[in-house]
């Protein structure tokens, strides 16, 4: 039990803080603990951000990621805490807009536009219409009270910590960070001494096992590492440091990509996958080619994927929309008596 707590406290602590905050913030009749709840929730958010920051380098992408995620989570918390349904709908619009920012960071511009139009433009506005139609005067118990707030928060907390612990266990990048630091050092090596500092002196190793332990580790990780070539470079006697450095420079991007993808399960190699939706993830690349993170022509690629691989699904989705709009009219139409 304590081992578990010790191992996963980085996930457990912010989640516990956040849900204590949400529990205090949920609507109830006495509002005296709302400030405390807001403080606890904010502390949980800060703690989560603190534990997620893994290195000191500050890039625009990192700043934008943290800003949009913080806004999204803040909007979600505000939505749960609002007594007024109009304010809750506006907080939901905030969640949608920040998620759209995250979509843009994830190289999905079409989805960003579509989500803003459909969610913020249509759904939230329609919800606001309904709220106005159904606006009641004064306080109602629908907005002033919560249903079983403690049990609901406990369920949410258990769900969240389970998800975060699984994520932490499967997507641990610390091993890759250590590897990456060593590779970057090798790529910038100027003299033989630099190389020996990272890899250890080959003369110290037992005969018959020339290759340093780092190479064995690299071979075991997800990247396609040419160990023979590295070994060959290493054992030449004036050591070709410049060649070694370029070898590792070429290799650095691969390790970076592998670090970003750690834990992502790839499909089996013999599974036939369509190539209309981008390069299939299980396809072997030709020598010297690198796998790009996204197809460059993203929107065009998405259109091609929709109208080749997913053509039937697109047709079905269109039918679903038609049926849903007819159904909505049929449900909401006010039948006059005797007119049925």
């Amino acid at each position, binding site marked *: 039990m304590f081992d578990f707590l010790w191992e996963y406290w980085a996930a457990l602590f912010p989640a516990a803080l956040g849900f204590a905050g949400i529990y205090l913030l*949920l609507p109830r009749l006495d509002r005296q603990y709302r400030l405390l709840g807001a403080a606890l929730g904010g502390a949980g958010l800060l703690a989560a951000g603190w534990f997620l920051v*893994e290195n000191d380098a500050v890039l625009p992408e990192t700043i934008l990621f943290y800003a949009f*995620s913080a806004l999204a989570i803040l909007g979600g918390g505000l939505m749960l805490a609002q007594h007024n349904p109009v304010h809750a709908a506006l907080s*939901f619009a905030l969640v949608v807009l920040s998620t759209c920012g995250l979509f843009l960071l994830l190289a999905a511009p*079409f989805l960003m536009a*579509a989500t803003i139009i459909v969610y913020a433009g249509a759904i939230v506005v329609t919800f606001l219409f309904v709220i106005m139609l*159904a606006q009641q005067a004064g306080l109602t118990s629908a907005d002033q009270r919560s249903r079983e707030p403690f049990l609901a928060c406990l369920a949410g907390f258990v769900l969240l910590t389970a998800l975060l612990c699984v994520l932490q266990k499967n997507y641990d990048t610390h091993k890759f960070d250590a590897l990456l630091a060593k590779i970057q050092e090798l790529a910038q090596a100027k003299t033989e001494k630099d190389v020996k500092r990272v890899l250890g002196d080959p003369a110290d190793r037992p005969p018959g096992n020339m290759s340093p332990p780092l190479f064995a580790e690299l071979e075991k990780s997800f990247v396609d590492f040419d160990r023979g070539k590295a070994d060959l470079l290493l054992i030449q006697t004036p050591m070709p440091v410049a060649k070694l450095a370029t070898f590792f420079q070429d290799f650095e991007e691969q390790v970076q990509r592998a670090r970003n993808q750690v834990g992502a399960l790839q499909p089996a190699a013999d599974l036939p996958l369509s190539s209309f939706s981008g390069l299939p993830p299980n396809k072997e690349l030709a020598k010297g080619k690198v796998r790009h993170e996204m197809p460059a022509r993203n929107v065009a690629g998405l259109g091609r994927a929709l109208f080749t691989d997913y053509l039937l699904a697109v047709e079905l989705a269109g039918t679903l*929309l038609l049926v849903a709009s007819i159904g909505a009219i049929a449900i909401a139409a006010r039948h006059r008596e005797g007119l049925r």
Partner: protein
Amino acid sequence: MSLVTLHNYLAVAAILFALGAVGFLARRNLIIMFLSAEMMLQGVALNLVAFARYRGNLQGQAFTLFILTVAACEAAIALALILMLFRRRKSLDVSLWQDLREPDLEPIVDEEPLPAPPEPEVLPHLTPAGREPDHPREETSHV
């Protein structure tokens, strides 16, 4: 070189999903319950888009478009249903529909009554323009 990993996006999506789940379970306003469900969908969409980016193909994005379609349909039907429910009970409180629960469950009873709504403030009326206010004529001497 990017420092934000798949893991970070999945964590944010998990938080959004859990917040939506808490909202759906705890709030009693029908509309906020449906907004919470939409927030859970947003978390799932974020997951799919992140997987698409870090795998380098577009399948996740295509799935997210279908999520969007289904969310739009769901919103249309849900709003029609909410309007119907509101017409029957004249309230958006979901607890008024608890006679639909399982027969062996206890009903939820609100113990504390709601505080009385504040009295509408009585504002002083101004006299309409162009008419003399009725006030007692005082006997005044102008001498």
